[in-house]
């Protein structure tokens, strides 16, 4: 958008391309920054530095130590990281985080987009459907977890439904069975996330120029072709928002898993985030937990940087 602006207005100085030297020639001197603005920037920065950056840096240092929270931490170099390689729980947590990213992320995009397409046309009562799908977002994830735990409990709603349709053989302790626990947690997480993604896409769909559809129709495009070649490309901006929301939400997913299974039974539904928490605050191995936090940070950074680099390349 910026580039088109600068192209259409050649008479004005290009704000980005010029650089400091050219700017100085055109203006009377360096731009004055009012002390007030400086204060607005620096005071929050200082607070952030103390409450966010410093602890984060401490985390990196702790990742290289053994620390039980009581005695002084002892430096072990990259020992914590090499321990991870042989740690079966870490491997499970990593695998589960990947499953979570794919299933939770993928299905909420597909589901949210599908729902948005279904519900974008203004029809009578469509507001009720939209509201119904969005309602789960209003609940806190912990409340969501509590409700779903009641569904999953022995002889609860899920079991009753399975039995009433003759699938009684499939009934199992959903949250206590290592084969089903993770998926039983993903389901309520999706239940909530789909509504959220749907709203993002609905907003995006509203912004698509109807004239484009007219034109495509005149050219004889089928409904599928209109979706594929008009709607999807037009939603590029929304897609980037959805992608970052999904990736961040996946990697920080903790509350719903913790309140439903605590990563159990025997670590089978452990995510990196829950493993980090239990290592830090239940096993009080704060050094190893910090190392796990560093891994989570690097993963998030890799995904988001990868995306940002692509986005910037597309723009230039």
């Amino acid at each position: 958008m910026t580039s088109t602006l600068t192209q259409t207005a050649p008479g004005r100085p290009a704000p980005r391309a010029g650089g400091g030297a050219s700017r100085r020639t055109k203006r009377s001197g360096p731009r004055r920054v009012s002390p007030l603005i400086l204060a607005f920037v620096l005071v929050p920065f200082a607070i952030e530095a103390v409450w966010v950056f410093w602890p984060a840096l401490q985390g990196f240092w702790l990742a290289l130590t053994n620390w039980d929270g009581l005695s002084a931490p002892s430096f072990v170099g990259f020992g914590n990281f090499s321990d991870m390689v042989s740690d079966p729980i870490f491997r499970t947590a990593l695998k589960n985080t990947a499953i979570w990213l794919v299933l939770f992320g993928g299905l909420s995009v597909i589901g949210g987009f599908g729902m948005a397409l279904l519900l974008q046309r203004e029809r009578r009562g469509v507001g009720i459907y939209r509201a119904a799908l969005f309602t789960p977002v209003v609940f806190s994830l912990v409340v969501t977890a509590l409700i779903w735990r009641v569904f999953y409990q022995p002889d609860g709603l899920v079991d009753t439904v399975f039995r009433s349709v003759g699938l009684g053989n499939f009934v199992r302790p959903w949250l206590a069975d290592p084969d089903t626990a993770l998926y039983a947690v993903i389901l309520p997480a999706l239940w909530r996330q789909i509504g959220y993604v749907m709203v993002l896409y609905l907003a995006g769909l509203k912004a698509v120029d109807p004239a484009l559809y007219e034109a495509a129709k005149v050219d004889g495009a089928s409904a599928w072709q209109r979706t594929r070649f008009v709607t999807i490309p037009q939603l590029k901006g929304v897609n980037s928002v959805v992608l970052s929301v999904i990736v961040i939400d996946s990697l920080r997913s903790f509350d719903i898993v913790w309140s439903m299974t605590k990563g159990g039974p025997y670590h089978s539904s452990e995510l990196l985030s829950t493993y980090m928490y239990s290592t830090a605050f239940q096993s009080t191995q704060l050094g190893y937990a910090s190392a796990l936090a560093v891994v989570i940070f690097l993963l998030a950074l890799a995904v988001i940087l990868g995306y940002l680099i692509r986005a910037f390349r597309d723009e230039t």
Partner: protein
Amino acid sequence: MTGLAADRRTFLKGLGLLGAAALVPGCATSTSSPGSGSAATGELSLQSNLSSEQAKAAMEKVVAAYNKTGGSQVKLNTVAAEIFRTQLPTYLTSANPPDVYTWYAGSVADSYAKKDLLLDVSSVWDSMTNYPKSMQTLSTSSAGQKIFVPTSYYWWGMFYRKSNFAKWGVTPPKTWAEFVQVCKTIQSKGIPPIGIGLGDTPWVASAWFDYLNIRINGAPFHRQLLAGQGDFTDPKVKAVFTKWREVLPYFDPKGKSFPFQEATSALLAGKTGMFLIGTFFADSAPKDALDDIDFFQFPIIDPAVPVAEEAPTDGYFASKKAKDPDGVKKLMTWLATAEAQEIYVQSSSGTAIPANPDGKSADTPLVKKGKAMIEGAAELTQFFNRDSSDALQPTADAALTKFLDKPDQIDQILKTWQTAAEKVFKA
């Protein structure tokens, strides 16, 4: 304005320096030197994890009673149990820590004494001559100092409904063989004989491990194992699981899904036969149902092994950095009296027994029976986490719940457990 720009640059440089200072390793993690607090202020702080409604009210009464005796005024600070547990190391290592804390006797208290964080209260014990030897041992650190003042304990047992046992025609078993027979009879009535609640509270399974281990291998072996001097792959440990497997078919399969509170409801509703649990379960049971509740001692497996029982002991310890050590000791001396402990026991749920032998416990048949069982035991253990550490507990939870699910994989499970335990002991 170049002046401002230069200012900005110096400012940024300053910020950079600040950032570099933040990088200096271990700033927040180093332990500061003790004795920084001000001199005796006449006020003591008591940090309590007894946050359930009844227990909190009972603590308030105890503190109010002490404040009437003169001397230092005590300020009670009740913290939610889970937060207290995770924050306790931070409290104790902070520069200005609270003075006195509620906590557990045994290995769990000794782990803090080993880090030299606890006040030596040997002089308090001078007034506690009537306490049994077992309590003394529990309150002594590995360095030989008294660091703990016990105030109450409770017991674990196999609880059941008297009316249901009568209906099913079974009597409380004494030996393992009788126990298995009772399980068979109850199962033949279509009821899962053994209740358990592992969803959310997987540590309940540790009671089975503890009891089978102290019945088969004895309390000394159990304590050594939990202190890191044994090995979970030891054939003697495997023998515990071989025994446990004999009764696995009698466990309530639904117990994996719900916490011990719901397992309590299942027992009271007659949906399970019996339930190995501590007396704290009574907090979540309706009062009228309690009259129908009785318990029997965990069955004897090897008569040659001295009988040990689980009797988790609660009490207080104090920070080494307490500003007024004499005031603290005076308070703890008072807390050790029968009078103080009776105030607590009467105002709380009533199943706790005063640690002071002269203290009167609640006058119910259940409590009398429990007290008699503990007094008759040759050895006392605390509970898995109290005999080891809170850090070892999650390793047991993972191993035991997996065993209940996949008993065939026991060798692999014990190997994994040993690896996880080594990591905890090394940390």
